[in-house]
């Protein structure tokens, strides 16, 4: 009881602490995720942290929250340098974080979840007292959620409110939100952010929000800090900045892509045609909303976009991992349903993201994984029934050598290899065929080092120059600008921008990606 009373009486006077991050650097092995980044969150402001995927935003907040220990740099709370080793430490300094995904127990009520979230819990809970305290808390909270409802019965917007309430209940004065609106409808997002904005305006809270959406930034935020490729790219007050300024900060000056050799094809045929394709996400929400596109032979069609706008589902539908709900896919003007026979006839190959999860059988050997496309064809099988183990082994040895897969032996389970070598295994399998006609690649270079990236880019370009039609889905805009012949942007399940690479307008791409 006492705690709630003090909480209430202090809300009027207690100003949120000032948070500063000074010259922070964080390395993961050879990769520098954060390079000398600073950030200043003034008390009682709504601050947005902007950047493309992989710019280091999540790494930065995880360093603040104590999930990672930075290699250099300081976190300063109210002008004192603090060592934060865990979220519990962060909580002590009044910092709380709301994650992208829900962390409540669905089968328990809102009240139970709130009590559960406390760091100091006793073995016995006096529910009468707790519920009274919670009622009082709800009266002063920026938004209300019914205390006795099980979390499983709440709508997504209410669940997100509960996540935020949890942090306020834990007396967080600085709230860090990691893309809090990615699971919400625009209306729900506006409501949640609007109510938070009011609380901030009253001076009771500071908010640091990671967002991709310029609309939300211009509507609710006071100040922005932008990261680009792990580096500090700029900061400023929202009222002084236009959207063009922000998107330029995010993407940087248009870098001249390294010239690559592209042969021109005189005759191009449409290979892949997608017509009005619809598909659902895992949770049944709409992922693809009538997407149409065509890929010609000998061209790379790039699809840019912020992750979560349906790119993954598109690739899954094409790869046969997810059923389409409407629309159709044509390959060589024939209906394509991703059966093995069709893949073989139309020579369709796929480089999916997360190769170990999507394209390998972890406990089967490297040799067997390399044979996944060819095991039922001669010379690796006789009459389509018997495996010729000798040929499978022989081909594996050849591919391991050509594609420089580092493995103890061809019989090692592929799950024992490092990520880069798993990727090479899939690459070897999908690109070694001389008869590719259509290649579907999704973030093929994610998490690889520089040399490997160059290598894979070279292979994809070589395929294109041999008249292969390539659909390249990537979150790395530089990669697309370097490789693609045409670039499109995907947002909310459809293509919202398309242009030839020579005429691509950088600022427009940025705005379309941010859903503006």
């Amino acid at each position, binding site marked *: 009881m006492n705690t709630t009373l003090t909480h209430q009486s202090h809300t009027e006077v207690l100003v949120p602490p000032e948070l500063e991050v000074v010259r922070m650097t964080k390395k993961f092995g050879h990769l520098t995720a954060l390079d000398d980044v600073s950030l200043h969150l003034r008390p009682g402001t709504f601050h947005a942290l902007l950047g493309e995927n992989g710019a280091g935003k999540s790494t930065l907040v995880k360093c603040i929250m104590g999930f990672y220990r930075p290699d250099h740099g300081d976190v300063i709370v109210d002008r004192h340098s603090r060592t934060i080793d865990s979220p519990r430490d962060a909580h002590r300094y009044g910092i709380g974080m709301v994650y992208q995904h829900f962390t409540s127990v669905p089968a328990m009520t809102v009240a139970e979840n709130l009590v559960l979230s406390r760091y100091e819990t006793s073995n016995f809970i006096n529910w009468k007292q707790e519920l009274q305290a919670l009622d009082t808390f709800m009266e002063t909270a920026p938004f209300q959620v019914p205390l006795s409802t099980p979390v499983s019965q709440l709508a997504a917007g209410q669940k997100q409110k509960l996540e935020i309430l949890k942090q306020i209940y834990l007396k967080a004065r600085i709230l860090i939100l990691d893309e809090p609106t990615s699971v919400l409808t625009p209306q729900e997002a506006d409501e949640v952010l609007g109510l938070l904005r009011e609380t901030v305006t009253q001076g009771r809270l500071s908010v640091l929000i990671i967002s991709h959406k310029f609309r939300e930034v211009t509507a609710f935020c006071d100040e922005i800090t932008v990261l680009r490729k792990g580096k500090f790219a700029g900061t400023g007050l929202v009222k002084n900045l236009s959207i063009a300024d922000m998107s330029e900060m995010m993407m940087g000056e248009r870098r001249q892509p390294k010239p690559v050799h592209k042969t021109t094809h005189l005759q191009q045929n449409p290979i892949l045609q997608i017509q009005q394709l619809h598909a659902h996400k895992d949770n049944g929400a709409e992922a693809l909303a009538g997407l149409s596109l065509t890929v010609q032979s000998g061209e790379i069609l790039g699809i840019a976009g912020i992750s979560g706008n349906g790119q993954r589902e598109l690739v899954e539908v094409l*790869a*046969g*991992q997810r059923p389409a709900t409407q629309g159709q896919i044509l390959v060589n003007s024939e209906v394509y349903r*991703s*059966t*093995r*026979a*069709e*893949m*073989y006839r139309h020579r369709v190959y*796929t480089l*999916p993201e997360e190769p170990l*999860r*999507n*394209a*390998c*059988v*972890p*406990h*089967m*050997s490297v*040799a*067997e994984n390399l*044979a*996944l*496309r060819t*095991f*039922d064809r001669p010379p690796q*099988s006789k009459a*389509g*029934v*018997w*495996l010729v*183990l000798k040929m*499978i*082994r*022989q*081909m594996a*040895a*050849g*591919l*391991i*050598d*050509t594609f420089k897969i580092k*493995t*103890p*032996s*061809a*019989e*090692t389970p592929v799950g*024992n290899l490092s990520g880069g070598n798993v990727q090479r295994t899939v690459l*070897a399998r999908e690109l*070694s065929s001389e008869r590719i006609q259509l290649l579907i690649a999704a973030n093929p270079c994610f998490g690889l080092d520089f040399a490997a990236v160059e290598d894979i880019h070279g292979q994809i370009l070589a395929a294109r120059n041999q008249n292969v039609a390539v659909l390249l889905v990537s979150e790395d805009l530089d990669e697309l600008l370097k490789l693609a012949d045409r670039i499109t942007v995907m947002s909310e399940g459809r293509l919202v921008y398309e242009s030839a690479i020579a005429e691509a307008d950088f600022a427009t791409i940025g705005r379309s990606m941010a859903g503006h």
Partner: protein
Amino acid sequence: MMLDRETWRRNLESICLPVGALLLSLVLFGLFCAFAGANPFGVYESIYTAAFGSSRAWQNTLIRAAPLMLTSLCTLLPAHLGLTIIGNEGALVVGGLGAIAAGLTLQGNAPLVVQIGMALAALICGGVWIGLVGFLRHYRGVNETISSLLMNYIAIALLNHLVSGPWRDPSSLNKPSSFPIANADLLGTLPGTRIHYGLVYGIIACVLAYILIKRTTFGFAARTAGGNIRAARIAGLPVGQLTLAICFLAGSCAGLAGMVEVAAVHGRANESLNANYGYSGILVAFIARQNPLAATAIAVILGGILTSGGILQRAHNLPDATVLVFQGIVFLVVMYSESLFGRLSIFKERPGTRKVKPAAVQV
């Protein structure tokens, strides 16, 4: 399995761990017997004598091993597709019912015709029974372990209903049974023994299963789908058809075990069909680590242990069910040993010392 000089450690691991698990179970079982007031070493000796001590004991053991080999395949084959099916008992019972129906219908034809008819009926009935589990799994998302377990009860209820109702032989008084199969139509025995031909069926089925899984494109596709269904889909493999086919084959093996029991042991269908061979088959599949060839050997060992139930009662004053305690201990220890795979450093693969020889292959 593709053998290679560099993989001997992993092969050794897959032999040492199950054998170690069996030995540990023996020790634990000995402790149990000591608590129950028997001399553990005397018990071991009795089990050995009853199971493998004489030609007669061997024959008893092998008669019991035959249905175990067949029922173990009902768990073993789907395991390669990533399914855990425990409906072996039900498929055996349904197979036995199919066999008796065919055997009685075809009575009067040449014995070989009747026997082939019984075998086919058993294969189809058992196959459809587990095929249904596969269908529910793939097309309706029903957990295959639960549904196959529950279908056991349905099968047993069906058996009891048929033999005490529509199919009942009025002369079977104490134990309701179907009409018997004509003596001429019963499965014969191997020359010079009491062992029936079911043992041959079992060994052939296990060898075929091994070839199917390891050496055919069908087995490769099934293992791929079992290991990672997303990878199987990206390779365009027909996961639904694979599921149905594997489940059908699995069920038909257990169904054949039912036919063997009907046509070689009991001569008719009654509640004796439901003699736990199905459940013991699950154990065989797990100890054999889903390898069909290993399953033949494990089935013999387990068949021997089952044979020794009576002697434990007579010689050591232990209850008849003591062998079930032993089975339970084996199951738990084997399950535990599964968790040790890849954890023990002596079995870890060392980085290759021998360079992989590049073969002359065009890529």
